[in-house]
């Protein structure tokens, strides 16, 4: 059982790492800016996944805070990017 967990987590780690590489390609090449935004957001999700799997592999709970932290930062980043793409400005002077 333990061995199965180890194999599965290794396979997951590899797959996520490869997918992050593809996302990196998309983030650099990305024909349009929304492509890049989505790619960056997904890289954030992948980072959370990698941290989670690492926490399983290393048998520690200390990484839980890190996952939450990356999640929040990725969220704020994506919101800011989306706002920039939509309105051309991140923090508006006034609401109108």
């Amino acid at each position, binding site marked *: 059982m333990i061995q199965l967990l180890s194999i599965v987590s290794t396979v997951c780690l590899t797959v996520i790492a490869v997918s992050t590489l593809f996302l990196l390609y998309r983030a650099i090449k990305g024909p349009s800016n929304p492509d890049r935004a989505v790619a960056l957001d997904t890289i954030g999700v992948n980072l959370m996944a990698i941290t989670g799997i690492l926490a399983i592999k290393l048998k520690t709970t200390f990484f839980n*805070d890190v996952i939450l*932290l990356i999640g*929040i930062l990725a969220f704020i980043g994506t919101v800011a990017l989306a706002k920039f793409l939509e*309105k051309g400005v991140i923090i508006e002077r006034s*609401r109108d």
Partner: protein
Amino acid sequence: MKNVTNDLILKTATTIIVFLILGFSVYLFFAGHNAPGGGFIGGLMTSGAFVLLYIAYGFQTMNRVVKIDFKTFIPIGLTIAVLSGVGSFLYGQPFLSHTDGYFHLPIIGKAHLATAMIFDLGVYFTVIGVTMTIILSIAKDEGEQVENAE
């Protein structure tokens, strides 16, 4: 402004999420020195929450609600941090000496408090001050003249 939209989803979500982030930042701050966390990352999270508010509501609204100049956070934080080190002079201990103990507090119960937390509080304020000052002055820099150029 090309697209005038109301951002209803963003604003509604922000009002809830900001409090989650602030709560998490306080948790991170108190988790410091024994577990991952502390003043620096707590301060970053708090300023993250503020940035989210600014993104959702814009300068005008935020300046009406939050009447704080984030620049003053920097010297306040530095003062707290330095004075927490100087405090050990009063007890004839070397600079930055730290002490801790277990206390019974109302509501929370038994708590582990350390003087290192005072230093961390200074770091917390300084980080908020620096981060917000940097982000807001970059965001303000939009070709037009900065109002109240101090």
